[in-house]
């Protein structure tokens, strides 16, 4: 048997030392593997932990790919002062490209360029992939088989999103299209593709 305190200690230690946000399932099959616990019990302990940290400098939050401890928002200005070298600056072009991939995924570079009206720099695509925010999920079956890009859970985590629809602008439908090639790809087919991408994400998460 495991006491409530032991359970909280194990979860706490696991979340604090994980490199990525941790899911309930990862806890169950990892640090809690030797105890027969169920999901509700773990969720309960996580809630208790969230409570424990209510008045502390850090908080336990649930993001797209699991739970993580992070610093309280109001402390950021002082902390940025502590780690000035870490403060990132992303160009408007990069954010635009990222938002576009998030909204229209899976999408080819050509399609990104068509919407933005400007060629996409290789550097931006490289940065997005190196940061783990964007990845290639397949290739479009057209001449040249261009890569299809999609956003990852790490992207959602970084921007404190649980879903892309958390961004109201990107929750919108695409304006009516008149393109011929678009007509060839029905909406339902697109939706299916997105589901696949998500599933593939989940698979990768498990592997990682």
């Amino acid at each position, binding site marked *: 048997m495991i006491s409530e305190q032991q359970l909280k200690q194990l979860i706490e230690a696991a979340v604090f030392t994980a490199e990525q946000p941790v899911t309930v399932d990862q806890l169950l099959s990892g640090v809690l593997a030797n105890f027969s616990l169920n999901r509700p019990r773990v969720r309960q302990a996580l809630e208790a932990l969230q409570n424990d940290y209510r008045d502390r400098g850090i908080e336990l939050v649930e993001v797209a790919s699991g739970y993580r401890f992070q610093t309280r928002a109001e402390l950021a200005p002082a902390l940025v002062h502590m780690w000035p070298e870490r403060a990132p600056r992303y160009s408007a072009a990069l954010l635009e490209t990222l938002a*576009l991939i998030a909204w229209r995924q899976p999408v080819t570079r050509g399609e990104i360029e068509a919407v933005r009206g400007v060629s996409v720099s290789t550097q931006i695509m490289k940065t997005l992939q190196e940061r783990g925010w964007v990845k290639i999920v397949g290739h479009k079956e057209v001449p040249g088989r261009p890569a299809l890009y999609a956003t990852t859970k790490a992207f959602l985590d970084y921007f404190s999103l649980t879903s892309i629809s958390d961004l*109201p602008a990107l929750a919108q439908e695409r304006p009516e299209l008149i393109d011929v090639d678009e007509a060839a790809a029905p909406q339902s087919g697109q939706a299916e593709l997105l589901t696949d991408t998500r599933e593939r994400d989940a698979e990768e998460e498990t592997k990682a």
Partner: protein
Amino acid sequence: MIDTQHSLPLGFVRGEPIFDQPEDLYIPPEALELMLDLFCGPMDLLLYLIRRQKMDILDLPILKITEQYMVYVDMMRELKLELAADYLLMAAMLAEIKSRMLLPQKHDDDDDEGDPRAELVRRLQEYEIVRAGAQQLDEQPQQERDYFVAQAYTDARDFAGQTPAEVSLEELGLALAKVMQLVEVQAHHQIKREHLSTRERMSIILSRLDDQGSLEFQQLFSPEEGRSGVVVSFLALLELNKEGLIVLTQAENFSQLYVRKATRVDASPWQQDESRDF
């Protein structure tokens, strides 16, 4: 026409204040360059021009917009800015739409499909969504800017590093098959195959001799193993002897036979004889 724009606040592009009156025909080159840096391309500039004049995208006044857009493009060309290529493409598109608008229109052409502006309007709408999305994304709490991930040190990983790797029998079998293949390819004449249990028994005998020094010959046989066991042990002893790993000693003929591990003294004269070139 341009005069009316003077009083309008130029507002902000991506949160950055826009420089004074860019609609003036003269903009200091550095200022234009800086300003263009703020735009993410021709769509952004176009959208900016539309927004600045509080025009409706859906009712795009193509003539006016094209005119204004061309002012910027001309300046860019004069300054030979690298960005010009993408902007020129847009200029060409605007010019094309403009010319089609000037052509006499058919009566049934008032639906969207027939409007030469339709495609541009759709693209602008689409771009506007992306632009707003980018802005909202930028406003989201970002790691290392608005929050930092809290992590604790642990030595548990070292602990993990010490857990020995798992190997399956299959893996070992595959490795062995590979090794056997190597042996076969290299020299199946040179390396004589002994029966496995013989080789294994050789190890066991060496191990026992290590522990016990010397043993009586019979001690290396277990009658309870049966005939085959005795054969295996005997073959192992012969092989060990042949390889110079053990020494069989006997005080006199027909007396007790002892087995001990070979030492340098035992082996070296014989070894040297073998290698000596006569």
